[in-house]
Structures are given as structure tokens and as C-alpha cells.
């Protein structure tokens, strides 16, 4: 027999329950997290735009402030036309304006240095490279301001930038240049002070992607180029505006994943980058994600236990039923199931118990059954023997055995009927009533008598009647019969037998004739002794034929 692998219903139910719970939980939570993420993303974009723009404004206004002072001085001071004393005073006043101006230099239109003043010792004068000077004059001679790239002061390691504004007369002619070395340390402080969330950072890069202001000054001093960072690359390649609808997750300046945005300063051509670590930016989402993961895990565990518990609750009665069935199979008919639940399984258990009870009533053990079967077989055999014996008896007996129904129609006939009446049994059974065989003379009377006996359900014995043989001869039968009744005592028919007494009847008739003749002869002829003896001898012979003792003693 093919053995199929057993699959526990409990496990199947528990797994199904768990799977269902898992799917529902995952779908619900995924949707929630997705929407939370979208909302948070929009918030972050908005916040970062604001921070970036504000930071850009801060840095820009610092630079712009210095430029404005220089421009105002260049415009109002009439610097070129003034005396040396006046020029010096103006420059000194400018230096006194704030610590950001470290050095000031005044050039005429011929690029000749007219005057210089410094917050530092005059030993430490600004040394402009020829290239820088060319750039400076090419810009300023066209009426434009000039801002150099950022460089680091060797003594103080502070970031410096050279700013220069053209000096024009009222006709707009180029008359000279006012140059200032501006200490960006103060901008560093500003940038360092920009708060981007709790752990975010802001920093400034120039158009080449060089880091020019950042909280970790050592990195600025190393002159790092950050154009490999995606957000900075965007700016370097011309993305001036802060992006309004995306909060890309990119690698930040500290090598961590951040949400970044930037704002272009305009003048100078720098950008402020703001970065907020993903962890902080999406903290609410992460927190809810974390909680969700825990919830899911715990829910799984609960679902697992609840599933196992429920499955077990459902299958326990079934397992009990199975075990009980097993026990009954082993013949322990006293097995019963404890019924606890009121549900279908409870009903099943009740039915099962009832079934076992009924089974107990109707079925004995296998031994009993076998014994019964053996008994029945024996009886059947006996029955068959009896029947055979009956058939043999019936076939060999000189008696005609028959059965009729309540109307007198033959339902059975032994084969001897043919010897007696010349009919085969099949010509009698179902075709002839018993009275059909009577002589016409006696039929009505005998029929009446017989049916009266039928009605009384009485047995009858040695009823002598004359019947007509198939060949037309008269046959004398002596009939005996008993009624056949059903369990309620209603007549079904009669069963009985007939004996042919025709010869006996004829002998009796002949005997009666002889006796009559003897008596007549005796009365009429006395003396005829011999004749008498002969007659007596004849009589004795006749008697002997009949098995009777001799009536007359013959004396010779």
C-alpha cells in the first residue's frame, strides 16, 4: 500500500493562521510606513530649503557686507584725489570698521600701489601673485568687483579672500582699485554656527567644489575638493537653485548617508550645502519603522502562539476522535470522548459516542460473530440435508405431497402425482385447484366441504375422495392436510398428502360382494359343504392377501 506522508492538521492550521496574520500585518504596516515616509520627505525638503537659503543669505550677507563697505568707501572717499594723509586715515578707519578686514591696499589706474595698511605688522604684507593681479585689474577695470579664491594664511591658518572694488570718477572712468584682504574666519564662525537639525552640518564650497568653510576646519585647511559628492557635483555643473521637490539621499561630507540640499550665494560664486543625516531626517519614520518591526515580530510570535493554540483547540477533539477510533479498532468498545465544546466538533463527538454505543449494542465481538456464522452455516447445511432428504422421501414415497393456497390452487406438488393422476407436477402447480380433479358428480359437494374446513383452519385426516385420472379413470385417494398459517394466524394455504387407495377400495368392494354371495349361498344351499369349504378357502386366501388371518378353519 502506498504510504502518504502525514501532515498534521494542527501545523497546517497554525501555518495558515500565521501566514494570514503576516500578510495583513505586512500590508497594513507597509502602507503606513510608506505614507509616513512621504509626509516626512515633504517636511524635510521644505526645512532644508529654508535652512539652505537662510545659510546662503548669512554667508552672502557677510561677503556682500564687506563688499558694500569697500564700494561705499571707494565711491564716497574720493580716494585717488585725496592726499596721502587723508588716504591713510580712510584706510585706517576702514581697518577699524571690523576685524574681518586684515589688510587694505590702494592702487591707482596704472596698477601702482599707492598705500597699504594692515592689522598685522607691516612686515606681513599681502603678496599678490602676478596672475591674481592681472585677474584683479582685468575685472575691476571693467567696473566689476573681484573676489579671489579662498586661500589659507600661513601664520594663522585662517582662510582669506581678496576682494577688490574699482574706484571710478563721476564720468565712470576707472581711476584705481581698493583691495581688501578679508579674513573668512568670521564666516567660518557663521557657518559653524548654522544649525541643521541636531546633527546636520552646513558647509560652503566654491565653484570648483573646494571646501571653504566647514565646522571641521582641518578639512578646509587640507584644501579638499568635494566635487565627487553628488550634491556638490550638481552645483559645480551649474545647479544653482535649491531643489524643491526632491530630497535625495546621498553620501555626505562625512561619508555618511544624508539628505542634502544646497543654495547658491550669487556673489561670490559659492554655495552653501546643508546635510542632515538620514537617521535624523527620517527619525520619526525610523522610529515608527522600528516600532513596527517590533510590533510585527511580536505579532508574529503572538499569531504563532495564538495560531498554534487555536489550531490545537480545533484539532484536539479531532485528534481525540482519531485516537478513540483507534482504540475502538483495537476492540476497546468502552472508549468514550469527553464532550466539551458546543460547536460542530462537539456535535461530532456526541454522534461518535452514540455511534460507539449503538455499535456496542448491535455487534458482538468477532468471536461471537464467527461462532454465529459457523452456527448458521451448520444450520444451512442441515437445512440443505433436510431438503434433500425431503426431496428423496417425496420422490420415492408412494404418497403424493402437495401444498395449496387459501383458494385451493396447488402451489407445490411432488412428482408422484404423475403416477397417481397422470399429471406432471408443472401441470398441476399454479394451474389446478384441488377440486378440479374431483369427479363431476362429487365436485361441488366436496369443494363445499373442503372450503368449510379451510375456513375453520382445521386439519383433516384420511378424507377419502374420488379423483379423475388424466386418462379418465377414477382414482380413489385418501387425503390428509394441515393448514399453513402466517405469524398472525391468517390462513395461507394447506399442506398435505394423498394416498392411492383405489385397489384397496376395489378389494373391499369385491370382498363385500363375495361375503354377500356367501351369505346368500349359505342361506340358499345347505349341504353344499364342499362348495362351502372351497368358498371358505377362497375367503381365507383373499384375507391372507390382505394380511388378515384366515377366517375359516378348513376341515378335510
Amino acid at each position, binding site marked *: 500500500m502506498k504510504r502518504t506522508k502525514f501532515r498534521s492538521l494542527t501545523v497546517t492550521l497554525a501555518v495558515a493562521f500565521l501566514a494570514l496574520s503576516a500578510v495583513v500585518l505586512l500590508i497594513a504596516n507597509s502602507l503606513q510606513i510608506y505614507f509616513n515616509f512621504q509626509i516626512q520627505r515633504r517636511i524635510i525638503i521644505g526645512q532644508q530649503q529654508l535652512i539652505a537659503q537662510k545659510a546662503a543669505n548669512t554667508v552672502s550677507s557677510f561677503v556682500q557686507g564687506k563688499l558694500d563697505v569697500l564700494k561705499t568707501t571707494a565711491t564716497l572717499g574720493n580716494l585717488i584725489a585725496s592726499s596721502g594723509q587723508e588716504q591713510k*586715515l580712510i584706510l585706517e578707519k576702514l581697518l577699524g570698521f571690523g576685524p574681518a578686514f586684515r589688510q587694505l591696499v590702494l592702487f591707482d589706474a596704472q596698477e601702482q600701489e599707492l598705500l597699504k595698511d594692515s592689522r598685522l605688522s607691516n612686515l606681513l604684507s599681502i603678496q599678490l601673485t602676478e596672475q591674481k593681479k592681472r585677474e584683479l585689474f582685468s575685472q575691476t577695470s571693467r567696473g566689476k568687483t573681484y573676489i579671489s579664491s579662498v586661500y589659507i594664511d600661513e601664520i594663522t591658518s585662517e582662510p582669506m579672500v581678496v576682494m577688490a572694488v574699482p574706484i571710478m570718477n563721476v564720468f565712470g572712468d576707472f581711476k584705481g582699485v581698493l583691495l581688501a584682504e578679508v579674513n573668512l574666519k568670521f564666516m567660518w564662525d557663521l557657518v559653524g554656527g548654522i544649525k541643521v537639525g541636531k546633527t546636520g552640518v552646513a558647509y560652503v564650497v566654491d565653484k570648483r567644489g573646494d571646501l571653504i568653510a566647514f565646522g571641521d576646519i582641518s578639512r578646509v585647511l587640507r584644501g579638499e575638493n568635494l566635487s565627487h559628492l553628488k550634491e556638490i557635483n550638481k552645483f559645480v555643473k551649474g545647479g544653482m537653485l535649491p531643489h524643491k521637490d526632491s530630497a535625495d539621499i546621498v553620501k555626505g561630507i562625512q561619508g555618511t548617508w544624508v539628505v542634502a540640499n544646497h543654495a547658491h550665494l550669487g556673489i561670490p560664486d559659492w554655495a552653501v550645502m546643508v546635510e542632515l543625516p538620514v537617521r535624523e531626517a527620517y527619525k520619526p519614520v525610523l522610529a515608527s519603522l522600528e516600532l513596527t518591526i517590533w510590533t510585527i515580530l511580536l505579532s508574529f510570535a*503572538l499569531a504563532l502562539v495564538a495560531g498554534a493554540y487555536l489550531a490545537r483547540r480545533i484539532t484536539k477533539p479531532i485528534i481525540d476522535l482519531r485516537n478513540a477510533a483507534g482504540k475502538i479498532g483495537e476492540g476497546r468498545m468502552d472508549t468514550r470522548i469527553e464532550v466539551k465544546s458546543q460547536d460542530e466538533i462537539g456535535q461530532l463527538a456526541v454522534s461518535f459516542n452514540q455511534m460507539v454505543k449503538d455499535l456496542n449494542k448491535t455487534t458482538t465481538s468477532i468471536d461471537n460473530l464467527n461462532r454465529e456464522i459457523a452456527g448458521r452455516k451448520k444450520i444451512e447445511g442441515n437445512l440443505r440435508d433436510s431438503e434433500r432428504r425431503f426431496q428423496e422421501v417425496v420422490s420415492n414415497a408412494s404418497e403424493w405431497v402437495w401444498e395449496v393456497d387459501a383458494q385451493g390452487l396447488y402451489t407445490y406438488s411432488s412428482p408422484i402425482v404423475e403416477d397417481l393422476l397422470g399429471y406432471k407436477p408443472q401441470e398441476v402447480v399454479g394451474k389446478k385447484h384441488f377440486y378440479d380433479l374431483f369427479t363431476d358428480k362429487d365436485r361441488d359437494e366436496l369443494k363445499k366441504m373442503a372450503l368449510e374446513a379451510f375456513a375453520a383452519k382445521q386439519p383433516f385426516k384420511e378424507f377419502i375422495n374420488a379423483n379423475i385420472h388424466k386418462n379418465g379413470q377414477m382414482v380413489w385417494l385418501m387425503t390428509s392436510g394441515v393448514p399453513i398459517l402466517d405469524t398472525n394466524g391468517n390462513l395461507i394455504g394447506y399442506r398435505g398428502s394423498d394416498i392411492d387407495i383405489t385397489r384397496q377400495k376395489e378389494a373391499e368392494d369385491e370382498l363385500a360382494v363375495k361375503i354377500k354371495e356367501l351369505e346368500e349361498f349359505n342361506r340358499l344351499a345347505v349341504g353344499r359343504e364342499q362348495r362351502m369349504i372351497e368358498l371358505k378357502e377362497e375367503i381365507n386366501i383373499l384375507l391372507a392377501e390382505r394380511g388378515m388371518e384366515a377366517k375359516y378353519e378348513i376341515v378335510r
Partner: protein
Amino acid sequence: MNKKISFKLPILLATLLVVVCTLLSGCGKKTQKMYHVGILSGIDAFASTADAFKAKMTELGYVEGKNIVYDFQKVNVDPAGEQRIAKKFVADKVDLIFAFPTSPAVTAKAATQGTDIPVVFANAGIEGSNLVESVRQPGGNITGVRFPSWELTVKRLEFLHELVPQAKRIYATYDKTYPGISFTLDELRKAAPLMNVILVEVPVTTAEEIKDDLKARSESKDIGIDAILVMPTLLTVSSGFEAVNNFAVEHKLAVAGSTNDNADIGAVFSYIPQNADFGKLAASLADKVLKGIPAGTIPVGTPEGYLRFNYKVAQELGLNVPEGLLSRADEIIR
């Protein structure tokens, strides 16, 4: 048996859920780290640096008693005391030592050798003190705010020359044992000829020697000096200053001071960073260090000079103060 477990497990898991949730919410509220910072002040004249440091630290989010505790220890020119305190800080395993000026900074650096305690210094001369490898990359576990000693001393001489251009002989007495003073002298010696002035250098080791020198000058026919440049050595800004100032008053000489308060007690001006600036800058460095940036990688800061001009003294001396110089002053005492 099974049945018992089935009934208990859901309860157990529900309890677990509650515990985990409680833990999770507890994790959110991280206990704030309490920083311990040892402050070593080596000279009273700079003691206010610590106040500015603390004020800036508060501004940066370090609130005393809440997430930071200061162990403020001060001595007044006491190398043995400095060492004792530095060792105590190391023994206490403070999170950071803030030491000023040069001598305590050097002591703290030595005391923290072999530990992971960072040192932030202020008011310290890095030239000749071997405190840092370079301004850009201090190295080791130290960073701080340098005292821009030589630049400002040269500038002070320039200001003095601008104020009293007729003064050609400038008195410069200094503690010859003071670390890094030779560096300042070298620069001064380069600058003086450019202004056409002569430095009258008087190297000493005690205040008595200064007094003796000044006494000798008073007693001679020509005092031999036209103005006084106070040199940035401990001796000359403390006990030495009094003798020098008395002499200046007596002989109506202009004194260029080397501490902020020199201008309050006789100097016509002083040009030196304010203690508060040292403190502020040091605090922003300390903030970075506490946030985990290795101190040795944080460039040394340089504060701006602060020009305090005592207009009263200038008037008493009958000096014609150039407007430009006054414009440059960060503070004018009238």
C-alpha cells in the same frame, strides 16, 4: 502539559511586548553624557579667560551642572602647583583639560602623555614652547588658541611709532628665560630699522634687575630711552610693569602695554587679544574635541588683537594722537 503552555505563552508574550515597548521608549531618552573639564589657570591676569570659555561653552550647549562639570584650579606663576593640578586632572580622568597660558599648557601636555585626555590651551605662545607641531596640524592630542605674541609685539611697536614718531629709542626689557621671547625679538629687530627706531634691549631675569636698570637711567644725565614697549613676558607684564610705569610717569614717556589692563594703569595703549576672545575660541575648539574630532587635527586658533587706547594718558603726555590710530582702536578710555 501542552495545554498549559498554550495558555501561558500569550500572557508571557504580551508581557514581553510591554517590556520591549518600555525599553524602546527608554532608549529614546538617552541619558546625557556629563563632561568633566579641568581648567588650569596659571596666572591671575588671564584668569578671566576661563569665564569667557564657560560662557561660550554654555552658548554651545554645555550647561554647567547639567551636562558639564568644571574643575577650576588656579595658581599664580607656580610651576609646581601647575604640575600638581595637571596630575590631579589626569588622575580624575577628566574628559578635557583647558590650560592657559603657555606654562600650564606645556605642563598639561606633559601630564597627559600616554593618556587619551585631550588638552585645549589658550594664551599660549607656540613659538619655542614645542607645544604643537604646526598651527595647521597641532599633532598629538592637543590644540588651542595661540598667543599671537610676535605679530602683535611688532604691531605694538608700529603703533607706538605712529603715536610718538619722534621717539627713536624704544625701551624693551624682557625676561630672557621666557620661552619663545627670542622669536619675538628677532622679528622686532627686523621691524625696527624699517621705522628708523632703535630697540634698547634689557634682558633680565627678575624685577629687581629692571628696577636697577631704571634706577641707573634715572641717575644718569640721559635716560637713554624715548618710549617704552612692554614685552610679552610674564615678568614684564606683572611685577616688572609697575617699575617701568613709575619710571614712565616720572619721565613722561609713552608706554605701549602688553596686557589689556596695562592701559588702565598707565600705558597709553595696549594691543593684545582680549582674554574673552581666547576663552571663546578655546570653547569652540573644546566643543569640537568633545564631539569627537581628534584635538591634534584641529588647527590652532589665533585671536584678533584688541587695541585699547587711553586717551587721558595720551593727553597728559601731550601727545598729538593721529585720528587714524584712534579709528583703529577697539576701545578708547577717556
